[in-house]
């Protein structure tokens, strides 16, 4: 058990090193930062001095080690465009993205599991079939189109919900939250649905097919033969066995909710890190791009680690 966790952590660290290498390589290969930083009237001495100061004359791997060391201490460099520390910019933007991801993740997970169970139990019912057909649309429509359609319907035609921004936010320490104001909560609805719809249909279809598979197992037959109630069979015996594969996919999906919030944030002008990243690409703001890449990989790796540990919590066979 201990060695299992240790192995997982070692693997995670390895992944982070590799992603760090890719992020760092961007500095080296996407243009020369010295060119960008110094103006037209520069001397060879200026360039040399700046190179020395920035450590650009050191061997590649020494630079990489320094980069990692600084990144580990929270120093992600300075944005070329805004001239402010990247860590500070991200800290401003991150709450918006995380809150959006949390709400849409919860939406996808809860609704996905509930509908998945429903469509599995009422396999041939009218409602279940209708949901399955609708879910196909959810899977096949691209995110930006869903966003635009929702804006058109609920913001433009019905004027029920705002079409962009976070609404009013409240500062709690360094964290700006939209959860505490009405306009903040209302502003979350459309982007959260847009971002979570695809994941929701995916989880629902997965839960359904896993549940149908589990319902064919001998232990379900035996549970029936013992005279247990339908509810106990469906929600105790079948659901828990369904969860193991569902957790894997859900973990990855939660990661991509954060990573691919870019499109939703663009459509809804949501002031999160995704929008920051798009802007950074436009202006070749390499420190911001590198930091974003690192951040996403840390999240993916963290979620995967959590998934592996959850497996162990759910399935006693992995504990021995």
């Amino acid at each position, binding site marked *: 058990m201990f*060695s299992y966790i*240790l*192995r997982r952590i070692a693997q995670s660290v390895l992944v982070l090193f590799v992603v760090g290498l890719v992020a760092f390589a961007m500095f080296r290969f996407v243009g020369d930062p010295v060119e960008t930083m110094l103006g037209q009237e520069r001397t060879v001495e200026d360039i040399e001095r700046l190179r020395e100061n920035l450590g650009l004359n050191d061997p590649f791997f020494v630079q990489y080690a320094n980069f990692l060391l600084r990144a580990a201490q929270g120093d992600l460099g300075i944005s070329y465009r805004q001239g402010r520390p990247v860590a500070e910019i991200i800290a401003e933007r991150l709450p918006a993205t995380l809150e959006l991801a949390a709400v849409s993740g919860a939406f996808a997970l809860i609704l996905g599991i509930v509908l998945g169970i429903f469509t599995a139990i009422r396999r041939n019912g009218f409602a279940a079939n209708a949901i399955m057909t609708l879910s196909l649309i959810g899977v096949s429509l691209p995110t930006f189109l869903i966003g635009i359609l929702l804006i058109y319907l609920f913001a433009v035609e019905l004027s029920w919900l705002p079409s962009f921004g976070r609404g009013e936010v409240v500062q709690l320490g360094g964290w700006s939250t939209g959860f505490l104001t009405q306009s903040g909560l209302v502003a979350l609805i459309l982007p959260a649905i847009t971002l979570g719809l695809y994941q929701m249909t995916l989880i629902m279809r997965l839960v359904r097919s896993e549940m149908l598979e589990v319902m064919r*197992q*001998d*232990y379900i*037959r*035996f*549970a*029936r*033969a*013992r*005279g*247990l*109630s339908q509810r*106990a069979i469906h929600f*105790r*015996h079948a659901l*828990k*066995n369904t969860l193991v594969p569902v957790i894997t996919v859900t973990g990855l999906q939660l990661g991509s909710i954060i990573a691919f919030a870019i499109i939703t944030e663009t459509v809804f002008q949501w002031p999160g890190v995704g929008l920051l990243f798009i802007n950074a690409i436009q202006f070749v703001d390499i420190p911001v791009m590198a930091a974003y890449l690192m951040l996403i990989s840390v999240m993916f790796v963290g979620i995967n680690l959590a998934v592996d540990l959850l497996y162990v919590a*759910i*399935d*006693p*066979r992995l504990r*021995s």
Partner: protein
Amino acid sequence: MALLEIDNLTVQFPTRRKTFTAVKNAHLTVEAGQIHGLVGESGAGKSTIGAAVMGLLDPPGRITGGVIRFRGEEISGLDAAAMADLRGKKISMIFQDPLTSLNPLFTVGQQLVETIKAHLGLSEAEAEARAIDLIERVGIPNPKERVNQYPHQFSGGMRQRVVIALALCSEPDVIIADEPTTALDVSIQAQILDLIKGLARERQVGVILITHDMGVIADTTDVVTVMYMGEVVETGPTAQVLGKPDHPYTKSLIAAVPRPTLKLRRFPLISYGGRVTGFAIEDLARNWPKPEAERGAPLIEVEGITKRFVSKRALLPSRREYFTAVDAARFTINQGEVFGLVGESGSGKSTIARMIAGLYAVDGGTVRYGGRDVTATARGVPDWYRREIQMIFQDPYSSLNPRMRVDEIVAEPARHHGLLKGAALQARVSELLDRVGLGAEAGLKYPHEFSGGQRQRISIARALATQPRFLICDEPTSALDVSIQAQILNILKDLQEHLNLTMLFISHDLPVVRQMCDRVGVMKDGKLVEVAETEALFAAPQHPYTRELLSLMPRLDGLSDEGLAVA
């Protein structure tokens, strides 16, 4: 009044194209304290009867005729709610595979307590006390600790005891046991059957024991009903039905049962219903290469081979724990003989076979084939040797690739070794399929179109494609019905006789081993404890473990000898 009465029962599975009748006009009565055997081959409708009584027929199956009465009251027409009240409370069921009957994610105690509370309305603490009591009653030691363990922490036999404990939660009057010991070793089988017998005798439970195993029927049941293709063909007291069978199907079924006591030249085939398909192995002998060694010379020499598996992984090699699956096994197999390996599951029989075949690397010792070293390393075994040996596996369903056509499956080994191509390969494939009794046109079909026995014939044809000298058969018939088993075993006997093949024959079924093998090795916990001539081993076993195994073998003394041709 009978405890359970099945009267003129018909169960049908209507599908779009036609209606399949699984059970037709079946009669069956169970009295309190009686064990009623229900025997027949797969597809005979035995399990369907069990499911119909429980109200657990898989849709679209339904009862289309007849009645089921419990204590005189009709239960076949009850609605779901009334049936759920009966199910598990008055009538319980035990399934075949204890590995899959228990939910792996809940402790044994949780599953027991849940069931007890569902039926008896006890408090949590009372239910827990009862759970511990039940576990103790089915003979599991340390019930207080084991109640908090998960199913995977129990051995197969102990799991089946847990399943029985679950079936006993509310003191049912009837237990339907559907092949309760088929997945278990003989010694465990005897214990579980004793437990079921005890329930019938001491607590007056009526038991329907569904099985395909005549040995279980002979040892356990009071009354037996024989089914064939959904119909009851014969019913009566066990001794009478087995000793003086009346119906021709019963007669041929009993004749096909391998006898532990006498060695036959060939197995009698079930002739009822015209199901026998011929095979002609002797025709293959004409262009089969002559063996290099003469009959009786050592072909395979196994010198102290050992296999260890890591049982507990750890970062540091010194902290790792190993399980020795095979411990310094030493034996030789002579040219032209059938060498048997017997033992319970986990004793290392299959591991030895896999090491000889080069599927597992050997951790110690050597294997020689015709005097040349063929010990399997991490890279496997030499190519020329692979061609000489072929394997036939236990499960005919998973050992054939479902996406490949049968002729491709049979041709693959010969093509892989570059032995034949084009028309010559096609001719070889057609000939092989023909000779194993499938007909050359079978090559155009896919595996799922065949029954278990036919698939095992495909496996045999595939194994013969490279014209091997040595066949490894790993439980080749334990997944098959007794009539099919007789056919497959006869094919294997023909192979040995006409093609002069040498065989390693692995089985847990002692009567089969007695019929098939010239010499036998007995395995226990990875060690080869005894090697002897088959007849000598059965007549005078030397090792205490061999004696124990032989004593657990069903006697089958009362079986009719009609239709047997003794060697």
